[in-house]
């Protein structure tokens, strides 16, 4: 039933639009500026002195510090990626419907599902490309300035990209029915709520509070961004940090910048199901939209 050629045409058109509208170039320039700034920060770390003008940091201290600073820097990148994914996806379908741009395209021998999948594919390519490009560059900068490389660079990039994909998928679903602004605000609020929900769940687990545990679980199931963020954090933690956190026991549970374990396989399986459900819902919703 589904034809792949129009899907690729719509994907290409989506990337083309981002490029022509100077969105890509603006994001690339800003990202380079931020990476440059963090290069300076990491460079400064190497030559930072101990308390009271004491001797320079030892190699072990430097690596530990670099690993923690990296987590904050990646958090910033993840937030930028989340914002970008949502802002690009939210008007993607609704804008074309409101401007009547879809009419001439859908009167061609194409299905609505092919348009939706093409848009998703094009936007997903942009998200993955950004996550990979910015991630690799940042890790190179950290490595060159401090000599530190996180334990799982590929895992880190994959988790951050997956967060962007989750938000893009959610925003695209809303875009089949809601105007751009509304379709953007809802996933962004969801992203923050899921983050707070993750903290709540951690605190609940630490203090055996069932209510908080369920809150954390529900927010994780509805929008798996925070669960994926914990995966990214785990991918950035050296063995010593993980060991320290584990020794601290449940008290580290509420910290959104720490993870004692990688995401459970069940959670990762749920994330895949979540994508399938959301994309299915998007296709269904747009199929029924009057244009």
């Amino acid at each position, binding site marked *: 039933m589904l034809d792949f050629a129009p899907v690729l045409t719509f994907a290409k*058109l989506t990337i083309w639009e981002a490029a*022509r509208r100077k969105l890509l170039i603006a994001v690339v320039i800003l990202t380079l500026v931020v990476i440059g700034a963090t290069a300076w920060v990491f460079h400064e770390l190497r030559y930072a002195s101990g308390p009271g003008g004491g001797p320079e940091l030892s190699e072990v201290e430097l690596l530990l510090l670099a690993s923690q600073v990296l987590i904050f820097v990646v958090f910033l990148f993840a937030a930028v990626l989340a914002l970008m994914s949502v802002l690009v996806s939210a008007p993607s379908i609704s804008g074309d419907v409101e401007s*009547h*741009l879809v009419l*001439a395209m859908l*009167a061609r021998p*194409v299905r609505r599902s092919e348009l939706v999948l093409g848009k998703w594919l094009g936007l997903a390519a942009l998200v993955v490309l950004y996550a990979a490009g910015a991630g690799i560059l940042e890790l190179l900068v950290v490595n060159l300035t401090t000599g530190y490389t996180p334990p799982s660079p590929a895992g880190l990039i994959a988790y951050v990209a997956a967060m962007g994909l989750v938000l893009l998928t959610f925003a695209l679903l809303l875009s089949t029915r809601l105007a751009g602004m509304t379709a953007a605000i809802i996933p962004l609020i969801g992203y923050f709520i899921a983050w707070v929900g993750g903290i709540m769940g951690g605190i609940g687990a630490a203090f055996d509070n069932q209510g908080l545990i369920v809150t954390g679980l529900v927010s994780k199931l509805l929008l798996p961004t925070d669960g994926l963020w914990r995966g990214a954090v785990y991918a950035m933690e050296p063995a010593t940090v993980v060991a320290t956190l584990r020794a601290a026991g449940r008290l580290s549970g509420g910290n959104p910048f720490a993870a004692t374990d990688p995401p459970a396989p069940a959670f990762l399986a749920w994330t895949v199901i979540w994508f399938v459900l959301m994309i299915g819902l998007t296709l269904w919703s747009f199929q029924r939209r009057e*244009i």
Partner: protein
Amino acid sequence: MVDLQERQAAAATAAASPAIHCVELSKHFGRTVALAGLTMTVPRGEVFGFLGPNGAGKTTAVKLLLGLLEPTGGEGWVLGRPLGEVAVRRRVGYLPELFRYQPWLNGGEVLRVHCELARLPRAAWKAETGRVLELVGLADRAGDRVRTYSKGMQQRLGLAVALLGTPELVFLDEPTSALDPVGRYDVRKVIHHLRDQGTAVFLNSHLLTEVEMVCDRVAMVDRGRVIATGTLDELLGGRSCRVRVTGLDVGQRRVLTQQFGRADDDGEWIVFRGLEAERVPDVVAEVVRLGGRVYAVEPRHETLEDRFLQLLGEGR
């Protein structure tokens, strides 16, 4: 089972030849009835005018026929294929009423995207885009971004998009709404060109004079239903004559209008419809016999507009 097969066979036979055939096609948006029950046949190779006041359901009908909307009821065939079939759209062109094309692409790029979506062979793209750009008079602006185009130029681009791949049927929804008189003349030329090459044109319009100039056949719709359909000659029913008369009382005027068939009494002017030219002196003689005074006699063709307003009036 046999019943169903018979129905399908009958449907296939009915749909084999016409460009469009639909029976009681309807569309409701919630409680709003956009199209009440459209039944009509559009022959192949003709220019078919689809006329109606704003809100009559013209654009909804086009969207249903193109498969852009799902009908609430009824059935239809386009080029012999049931409504909603994807493959038939390879043989159909469409200029929407609210036309818009990617403002960040240039005209040539928009056409190439549509060549790709229409599944034209890649080797033919260049010649085909060149051909349609030439036809609509946009060849010298093909390299400019669509966002720099005037409204009229965007409508010309839309027309070019609709003509790609030499379709067997082209839907033009108010194709001259943004055009100046020169642009309108150009569109008429394009429509004549399409008819010459055997393409059926479904022209949605409320510009009656335009329709009169290009259409072979028309359907008039009002409130989602066809109120009249036929060739222009069938619909207009020959000549009419307008006479300015004074000095007759109401009873005398009624006698006069009843004597000469269809007539509208419009104050000083009485319009006699479908009146043969040789009967005009008889009308004047009768007015004089009744004691009236004749100031003017204007024999003329009935226009589509007259007929349209008259039909609308009868229906309401």
